[in-house]
C-alpha cells in the first residue's frame, strides 16, 4: 500500500486560464509528476462534466481517482499533500489568514476588474473599470511591501500563495496593457510589483508553464469581441 502522495496525478486544464496556471505552478514547486490534459471545449467535455458536475469548470486535479476543484483549493491541497517541497502557505496562522485574504481579494476584485475592462461596452464603462483596477494595483503594491519585507516575493525568499494567486494574473494584465494603453504594473506607481513581476516570470516553477503573451493577445481578441480589442 503506497503513500497517498504517490498516487497518479492528472490535471484537466486550458492553456489560457490563469486559474489553471496557478495549479501548474504549485505542482511544479513541489516537483509533483503529473499528466496534463488540455480541455479545449470545457462546456462539452465529458471529463469536465464528470469530475466537476456542479460548476463544469477547469482546473480539476484528479489525484488517484479523487477530483479536487477550484484553483485556490487545489493549490492548498497540493501544499498540504506534498509536504517535502517548499511550503506554499506560510506556517504562522496569522500569515496564512493574510495570504488567504489577499487571494480571495485578487479573485473577487482584481480578476473581476480585469474582466470589466475587457468586456466594457463603451468609453465610460472602460474608464470606471480601469480606475477600479488601478486601485487594486495600488493596494497590492502596499501588500507586497508589507509581506515581502524587502525580500523578492510576497512569500518572502520564495514564491508563496499570494505570488501564485496574483502572478497568474500577469498574463491577462499584460494583454490589457497592450490594448488599453494603460500600464497597470507601473515602474513608478507600483515599483515593488514591477520588479516582482520579472522575478516571478523567471522562477523555475513558472517559466515553463507561463503562456506566451502573443498567443494570449490573439486568444483575447477572438474571445472578447468588444471595443477595446478592435
Amino acid at each position, binding site marked *: 500500500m503506497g503513500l497517498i502522495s504517490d498516487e497518479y496525478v492528472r490535471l484537466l486544464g486550458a492553456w489560457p486560464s490563469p486559474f489553471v496556471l496557478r495549479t501548474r505552478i504549485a505542482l511544479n514547486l513541489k516537483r509533483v509528476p503529473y499528466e496534463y490534459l488540455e480541455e479545449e471545449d470545457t462546456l462539452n467535455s465529458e471529463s469536465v462534466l464528470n469530475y466537476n458536475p*456542479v460548476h463544469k469548470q477547469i482546473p480539476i486535479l484528479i489525484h488517484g481517482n*479523487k477530483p479536487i*476543484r477550484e484553483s485556490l*483549493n487545489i493549490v*492548498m491541497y497540493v501544499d*498540504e499533500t506534498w509536504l517535502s517541497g517548499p511550503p506554499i502557505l506560510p506556517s504562522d*496562522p*496569522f500569515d496564512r489568514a493574510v495570504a488567504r485574504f489577499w487571494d480571495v481579494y485578487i479573485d473577487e476584485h482584481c480578476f473581476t476588474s480585469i474582466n470589466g475592462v475587457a468586456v466594457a461596452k463603451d468609453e465610460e464603462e472602460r474608464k470606471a473599470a480601469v480606475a477600479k483596477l488601478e486601485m487594486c494595483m495600488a493596494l497590492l503594491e502596499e501588500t507586497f511591501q508589507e509581506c515581502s519585507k524587502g525580500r523578492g516575493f510576497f512569500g518572502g525568499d520564495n514564491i508563496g500563495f499570494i505570488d501564485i494567486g496574483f502572478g497568474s494574473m500577469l498574463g491577462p494584465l499584460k494583454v490589457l496593457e497592450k490594448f488599453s494603453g494603460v500600464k497597470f504594473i507601473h515602474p513608478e506607481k507600483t515599483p515593488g510589483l514591477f520588479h516582482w513581476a520579472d522575478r516571478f516570470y523567471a522562477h523555475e516553477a513558472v517559466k515553463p508553464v507561463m503562456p506566451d503573451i502573443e498567443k494570449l493577445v490573439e486568444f483575447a481578441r477572438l474571445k472578447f469581441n468588444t471595443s477595446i480589442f478592435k
Partner: protein
Amino acid sequence: MGEREEVKLLGTWYSPVVARAKIALRLKSIDYDYFEEDLFGSKSELLLKSNPVHKKVPVLIHNNRAVVESLNIVEYIDETWNSSRPSILPFYPHDRAIARFWSAFVDDKWFPTLIATTITKSENAKAKGMEEVGEGLLLLEDAFISISKGKRFFGGEVIGFMDICLGSFLVIVKARENLKGENILDKSKTPSLCKWANEFLSDDTVKNVVPEIDRVVKFMREFEAETQTRAS
C-alpha cells in the same frame, strides 16, 4: 499557561457570518470580548482601522492583529488553538478540499441566490431564484449524505467547518419560512438536511450563540417596512 490572550470579536447580533466566528470560538472554549457594531449608524474606529479594505464584520482581533472574513477567521481559530479539541477542519487534505469546495458553493452561489429572491421585485425572477435555491439544497443533501457517512454532522460526531458554514444560515432560512410562509427546507425533498438542521440548532455550541428566530423575524419585518417606506 501564560497570561490570558486578548481576543476581541467585532460583529452584529443578526449577522450569520458573525455567528460562524462565535461558534468556532465556543467550540474551542476561547474567552473573548464582543463588540456590537452599528452598521446602520456609523462604524466604529476599531472596525475601520482593523478592516480598512472591506469595512465589514466579523473581525477577530487576536493580540492586536486583525483577521477578517468569516471562514478565514474559522480556519485561523482552528489553526491557532490547534491543541484544543475538537478540530474544526477535517484531518485529511482531500476532505478539507471537499469542505472548502462546498463552503464556497454556499457562500458564492447558494446563499446569494436566496438573498436575491428577497430583493427582487420581479415575481418571475423570484420563482426562478427559489427553484435554484431548491436545486442547491438537493446538491447539499447529497453532499451531506456522502460526507457525514451516517453521523449527525458534516464533521462527523461533532460540528465541523461545513456545519458552521451552512448552519450559520439556518436561522435566516427559518425566519424567512416564518415570515413568508415558505417551505425552503422541505422534509420530503431533503430529509437528511432537515434532520441535520435540527441537530445543529439544538447543539450546545450553537444554541445560545445564534440569534433567536423570532427576533430575526421581527428584524426582517422592520427592515422590509423601512426599505419600502424609503422607496415610496
